[in-house]
């Protein structure tokens, strides 16, 4: 998983620590053979210092001072912005390859410059330092609010969760997984067949419900999804059920009418949690999806199909934009293939090179 993004991060870490090594080696050379290096350096800077030298040519002590100055400058050399920028120039483009949106890679880049600029780094620890800097930046992006779902559910009955997202992102399967997860924790659940548009969507959620032994509230195709979900809520109130998990039709976020429909669902039912389901295979458009759907108000995100994805960029992009908790990640076809997002695990995985 995420091999590609990992590879890219590794490349940049190596590049930067390579540069640091160069600087270290230069320093070492100066320490070992100070005269030769200083001579080299002076020759290198001849045009620059000629003017200065002209004035002091006859004065040995002043010339010595100049020499000292250059040695000191060379010895003091640290990573500067000028060193880092060329190394990171293509960083954004490279992370684009891993489906990380451009503005996100820009942020990582700036973080790295801020973190590394002017740092003096001990020889041998270059890579460590650079990897730490990358980790710090990614960790900042993934520094998301947390949500304690079980606690929330205990505090409100029935607790209504509405799931929405683009077509084919995996909403219905995800609902079955979340319901199964909550049922195993001892919560009673009911599903609402709120996708009344796509052919066989109702049969699909019914089949899922049967497999995880949960009730479904449904109406006919073409029915108002807001009403279906309302029914489910009323049913849960009457039967004292803990959680209502509402499906909605997949929709293109650029279709205004469909977004209005979603707004109506929210207006009528006032869900306790609005969950955006995002296919982690999505490319650079993931950030657009997040942005458009956030007009409805996203409380938490679920990423699906992680078992297929090797790039992991969508998680970074969407988290950067929304700063909303990642409720779950889904990584397989079975009902059990759902888990909490573990930031440390994700980072360790990405940075284990």
């Amino acid at each position, binding site marked *: 998983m995420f091999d590609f993004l990992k590879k890219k991060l590794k490349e940049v870490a190596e590049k930067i620590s390579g540069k640091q090594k160069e600087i270290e080696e230069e320093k070492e050379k100066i320490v070992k053979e100070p005269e030769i290096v200083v001579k080299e350096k002076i020759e290198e800077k001849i045009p620059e210092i000629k003017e200065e030298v002209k004035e002091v040519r006859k004065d040995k002590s002043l010339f010595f001072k100049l020499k000292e100055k250059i040695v000191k400058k060379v010895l003091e050399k640290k990573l500067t912005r000028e060193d880092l920028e060329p190394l990171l120039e293509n960083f954004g483009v490279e992370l684009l390859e891993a489906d990380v949106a*451009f503005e996100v890679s820009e942020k990582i880049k700036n973080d790295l410059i801020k973190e590394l600029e002017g740092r003096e780094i001990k020889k041998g620890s270059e890579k460590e330092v650079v990897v730490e800097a990358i980790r710090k930046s990614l960790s900042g992006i993934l520094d998301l609010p947390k949500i304690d779902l079980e606690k929330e559910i205990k505090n409100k009955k029935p607790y209504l969760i509405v799931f929405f997202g*683009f077509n*084919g992102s995996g909403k219905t399967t995800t609902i079955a997984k979340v319901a199964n997860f909550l049922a195993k924790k001892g919560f009673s659940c009911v599903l609402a067949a709120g996708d009344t*548009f796509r*052919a*066989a969507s109702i049969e699909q959620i019914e089949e899922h419900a049967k497999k995880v032994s949960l009730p479904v509230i449904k109406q006919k195709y073409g029915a108002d999804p807001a009403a279906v979900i309302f029914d489910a809520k009323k049913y849960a109130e009457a039967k004292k059920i803990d959680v209502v998990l509402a499906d909605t039709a997949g929709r293109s976020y650029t279709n205004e009418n469909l977004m209005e429909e979603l707004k109506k669902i929210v207006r009528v039912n006032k869900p306790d949690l609005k969950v955006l389901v995002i296919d982690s295979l999505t490319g650079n458009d993931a950030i657009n999806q997040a942005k458009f759907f956030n007009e409805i108000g996203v409380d938490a995100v679920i990423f699906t199909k992680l078992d297929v994805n090797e790039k992991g*960029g969508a998680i970074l992009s969407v988290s950067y934009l929304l700063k909303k908790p990642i409720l779950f990640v889904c990584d397989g076809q079975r009902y059990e293939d759902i888990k909490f997002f573990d930031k440390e695990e994700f980072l360790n995985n990405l940075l284990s090179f």
Partner: protein
Amino acid sequence: MLESFSEGLKNAIRKIIGKSSVDEKAVEEFLKELKVIFLQSDVDVELTNKFIETVRKKVLKEKIPEGLTLKEYLIKVVYDELVSILGKEATDIKGKKIMLVGLFGSGKTTTAGKLAYYLKRRGKVALVGLDYHRPAAPEQLKQIAEKINVKFLIGKDTFEVAKESLEKFKDYDYIIYDTAGRDALDEELANELKKLGEIIKPDEVLLVLPADIGKIARKQAEEFNKLVGITGIIITKMDSSAKGGAAIAACSVTGAKVKFIGVGEKIDAFEKYDPKRFVSRMLGLGDLETLLEKAREVVKPEKVEKIVEGEFTLEDFIEQIESIRNMGPLSNIISMIPGLSLPKDLLKQQEEKMKKWKYMMQSMTPEERKNPEIINESRIRRIAKGSGTREEEVRELLDQYFKMKKLMKSMGGIKGLKRGQLEQLMRQFGLRL
């Protein structure tokens, strides 16, 4: 943020397109921007680099054909290169047995229905459901088939159904096979697909790819191609902000071309691939050419004559508005003009306004329409009442008309609408660009 970034790119490109001559430095600049656009549109990086190299070689090292400026040549080369990967024109369905394959949630079943509906006009079509993994997938196919009144076959076992279909639909013109969504690297599903290919021996294997898929598209396309041999690509979900650049990777690695585009959730939201539209959208360059072609079509020559002579009635005005509306919703037209983007609300407002103007027109007498100068306050009241609008709205229409008339005179007609003039025209309709 994202918008400002892509705006920046558009500007960079416009800058170069706008230059009268393009020097080497400008070409390099352009290629650099192009690279970012490609990657942002989810094109695979290796292909991007290869593509850029080809363009650079052609533009800088080869001789520019006579009659073309470097600028024109540059755009032409990019377009030609892209089209040579994606397909120069829409290629038709060949043969009878068509199998749809792809990842989960790419839209195969919906697409199977759309394709069946599309082919129905040409002959007898049957739909066969081979997805017995996803709950209710066969049911979905059945509901779609019944809705569009096409014969279908579903069962319990993938291979049995596949075998049965060959016999059952032997006399049909087209058999469309909907297969289970799968990760092409998943061994079990891969084997199933391979075996299906051996049983069915399809004439066409179409890879269904969603427009928003990321760079994983390449690897998946490669695997699917190894398993069953891809003969064509269908890009779905183009009714979003996604660019569909993954198509380039898929076409490159399989050698297959794009055949169809899914543009919405309705059964007929399905189009033949159109290279011009696809490429300009992918590059975010808008579709100026199409727009101008359309603009040329809708402006009738005799009208232009009249307008040049200074005769420009309210009827002409409404006709102009109508003809622009005929090009599609305003937002579509605006998106065809490079570098123009307007807030959605404003466009919607404007479309509403145009509708109202039409009602007002219908409430006018023929005399009033021909000679709007005679419309006084009491006539305005009557028109407002008759059309169910407010008086100030009628005044606004008249105001817009008089402004337009003035503009028309100063422009000397609308033959050969140029970009600046078109903008002016739109501004005249109350669109502040």
